[in-house]
Structures are given as structure tokens and as C-alpha cells.
């Protein structure tokens, strides 16, 4: 599904201010997998995500999505950014925000409206279509951003610290929403986070990155009983063990 081959990215050319964000990073993600990527803050996670999404052209190596080298944003790829307040369009209603990307999908107006309604329903916001983003709470705005990505019916969904700007309770709700969405729609999800617990709770697999320049320092399979639950999963011995393991890998390389 997703192949990252020897990826490197340097900001600022070769000059004295050059910043090596990623160096020789290799990673592959299988179809239908939910992969969490964790790493210390500022390690180049966002650069990795933007390279996958075709928003930046990496200075070395390549990214392949469904066998195609990424040069611009691939078809059927959606991104949920951390900063929902700046990724939603404030001048459009919630429903228009969700329906906007569908213009590329050969759907007529009615179909677009229905798809938007359906996507909003699946994130628990069926009544909010006529509202504007600023009339919703932060957590609800992020749900709209997720609905927008879902309505697009991507085969690969990238999430860039999607729950980094919401409170703890909302965060748990949104984590469960991702798990629910994932079991209903057939798609591959790559979720970037700096929260170790979250990566283990949500992911099928957790990849740990070093601090910049980022490369893979750990790759753990998460084998926790389904369905996952905020209380019981988090007290499961395997969860506790995995969390410690991921923490060691993140810290070990963060404090060197």
C-alpha cells in the first residue's frame, strides 16, 4: 500500500542553516493497516507526513502509494491536520466543507450532499451540517475534518497529530471514533502522534522514530484483544508492557 524507500529531507538547501529532518527512512505499510508513528516532538514526523501526501518533494529517496511514486498528492488520499481551526474553511458551512472535495469525484450536487450528510452522521454530527465551523467546539470541528476525509472515501488516510489540540475526554472519544471508522470503512490509516499511550491504544502497529534527522528505531506489532476499550484495554498487561517498550524507545533516543 505504502512504501517509503530511503527517504531523506533537508530544509534550507545545502547551506549552513540546513536542517536534516529525515535521513534514510524506510517503512512499509500493508493494506488495511492502522499504523501509528510516534517520536519526540520536532523529530520530522510532519515532514514525513507531508512527503507522503505529496505536499513537499523530499530531497532524497522516494514514497510509493499503491505502487506509484508520489509526485503530487495521490488519488484517494486524505489528510486530517492537527490544526482543525485552520484546515476547515471558516466561510463555508460544515456540510459545504465536507462536500467540497467531492467536486473532483464526478458526483452531482445531490450525491455530494448525501455523501456529506452520511459522513457527518458517521462521526456523530448529523445535525450540524448547516452550522459554521466557529459555532462548534474544538472536538466537534475535528470531527468535521474527519468527516471531510471520510466522505472523500480515501484508501489511505493520513492523520497529523489529529487530537493534539483537544482536551483529554474529547481525545478519548475521538480515538474511539477512529477505531470505529476504521472497522466500518476499508482503508489504511497512518496516524502521527507524540502520545505514547495513544499510539498503542489505537494502532495495529507502532513505529518509533528517532529525533531529527528521523529514522525508524522501533517497529512493534500491537496485538491487543478487540474491541478496544478505554478502560479495559488500558489495564491489559500487554498494553502496559507495550507502552513501556515504546516509551523506552522514544526516550532512549530523545535524551541522547
Amino acid at each position, binding site marked *: 500500500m505504502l512504501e517509503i524507500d530511503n527517504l531523506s529531507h533537508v530544509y534550507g538547501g545545502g547551506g549552513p542553516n540546513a536542517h536534516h529532518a529525515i535521513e534514510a527512512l524506510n517503512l512499509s505499510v500493508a493494506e488495511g493497516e492502522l499504523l501509528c508513528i510516534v517520536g519526540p516532538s520536532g523529530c520530522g514526523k510532519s515532514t514525513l507526513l507531508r512527503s507522503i501526501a505529496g505536499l513537499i*518533494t523530499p530531497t532524497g529517496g522516494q514514497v510509493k502509494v499503491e505502487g506509484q511514486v508520489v509526485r*503530487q498528492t495521490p488519488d484517494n488520499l486524505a489528510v486530517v491536520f492537527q490544526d482543525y481551526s485552520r484546515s476547515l474553511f471558516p466561510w463555508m458551512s460544515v456540510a459545504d466543507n465536507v462536500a467540497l472535495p467531492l467536486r473532483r469525484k464526478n458526483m452531482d450536487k445531490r450525491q455530494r450532499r448525501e455523501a456529506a450528510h452520511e459522513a457527518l452522521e458517521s462521526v456523530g454530527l448529523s445535525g450540524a451540517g448547516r452550522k459554521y465551523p466557529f459555532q462548534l467546539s474544538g472536538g466537534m470541528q475535528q470531527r468535521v475534518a474527519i468527516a471531510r476525509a471520510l466522505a472523500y472515501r480515501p484508501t489511505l488516510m493520513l492523520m497529523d497529530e489529529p487530537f493534539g489540540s483537544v482536551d483529554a475526554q474529547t481525545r478519548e472519544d475521538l480515538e474511539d471514533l477512529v477505531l470505529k471508522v476504521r472497522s466500518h470503512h476499508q482503508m489504511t490509516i497512518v496516524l502521527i502522534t507524540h502520545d505514547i499511550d495513544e499510539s498503542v491504544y489505537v494502532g495495529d502497529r507502532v513505529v518509533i522514530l528517532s529525533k531529527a534527522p528521523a529514522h525508524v528505531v522501533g517497529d512493534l506489532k500491537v496485538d491487543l484483544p478487540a474491541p478496544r476499550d478505554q478502560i479495559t484495554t488500558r489495564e491489559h498487561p500487554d498494553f502496559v508492557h507495550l507502552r513501556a517498550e515504546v516509551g523506552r524507545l522514544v526516550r532512549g533516543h530523545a535524551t541522547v
Partner: protein
Amino acid sequence: MSAQTLARPRPASTAIRWSRRAAGALAFAALIELVSRTGLVDPQFLPPATEILARAAALTADPEFLAHALTSLIAWAAGLGLAVVIAVPLGLLLGSVPIVDAATRSVVEFLRPIPSVALIPLVSLLIGTGTQVRITLAVYASLWPILYNTMYGLRLVDPLAKESLRSYGFGPLAMLRRVSFPSSAPFITTGIRLAAAVALILVVSTEIVAGRGEGIGVFMFYAGIAVPARMTDILAAVLWVGLFGVLVNAVLVAAERRAFRWHHARMGETP
């Protein structure tokens, strides 16, 4: 647009931006030179840029032009200065005493929309065609932006700052001096910047309409009668007026930034 430019637009450095501005200005001058020399635009209407620049340089040594320019400059400075002296205290008063504001609001709303150039004939009848007319009209026109911005700035004063000062036993005058005035200073500066441009418009308009005495507008008026022979004179004078406007604007923008430093600090922005 390539992916590279979209993702992270890196703002160009100050040096690069200045060199680009200079290159843009040079290209603009070269374009004028070209269309004029090739006859694409009648050179009588648009003389080559080099001729305009040469004339503009020559005008700096022309005592007649300098006298015209100085008269206008004095009228502009006096008009703007008087407007500041009147409008800032008035704005502070109206902005901090609600009852006075309510009482005068209708008058302000009534006077403000009158286009100031409409007063040129009336004021000319009242006080002749001298410098006083220009100053009077410049004051009238530049009063409103300063008044409006001063009042607007006062409305945005952080009530917490006022309360904390009041809790230390400061009176209303101390509050005005220590909180209200400093925190509305950036808005006052913005008002003065807008007023400076309006005052210049009024001085030049009045001079052109009156067509007598001294002043840069009078210079343009006479050059206009002799046009197209004196087209170069007009454009050289326009060049000086425009550069003067740019200079005044730049100075006041810098003053605004300075006055606004606290604002950027509070908002967590980089100035």
C-alpha cells in the same frame, strides 16, 4: 504552482525583498522609457523616464519650484498638526466620557460623511484663496480619521488593566495617562497616517481648484495650461509628491510598529 512552493512558503529575506522592490521600480521606469521612446504612447503625453528623472533633479535647484513646494509643505504640516492637536484630545474625551460621546455622536455622524472638497468653494468665499484656506480644509479632512481611530483604540483598552490600576487607587486622569493613552497610541498613529494622506489630497486639490498664489498644485495648474509642452514638469512634480507621500507613510508605519510592540508581545506575534 509546484508542490515545493505551496507547502512551506519561506518568506524572502529583507535584503532580497528590497532588491526586488528596487528591481521592480527600475523595470517600471524602463517600461515608461520604452513605450515613450518607441512612440507606443505619444511622448508628448508620457515623456521618457530619463527625462522625467532629469527634470525632477533639476527642479530641486529651481527656486520657483522650491517656493511652491515649501508653501504646500507648510500648509500640509500645519493642517495635519492642528488636526492632531484638536482630534486626539477630543477623541480621548469622547472615548472616555460616554455622555459626551452620546451627545455629540449625531453631530459627528452628520459632519464626517461630507466630502471635504465640497467645502472648497464655501471656505474660499469665507477666507479668500490664501494658505489659510488650504490649512482649514486640511484640518477638516484629517480630523475624522484621527478622531475615529482614537475613539476606536480607547474602546479596545483592556478593562483588566484599568481595574488593576483603579484597585491601586489611581484616579481617572492617571488612568487615561497610564493605560488608555498608551494602549490606544498605535491606533492614534494609524489615524494620523490616514489623515496625512487625506491632508495632502486636500492641499493639492484646493491649490488646483483655486489656481492662484503659490503651491505645488498651482505649479501643476500652470504647467497644465501649458501642456503638452510642460508635461515633463507635471510628472516630475508628481514624482516628488508621490515620493513625499511614500516617505511620510513609511515613517508613520514605523512609528505604528514601535507603538504596537506591546500589542505583538501580547498577541504572541512577531512584528
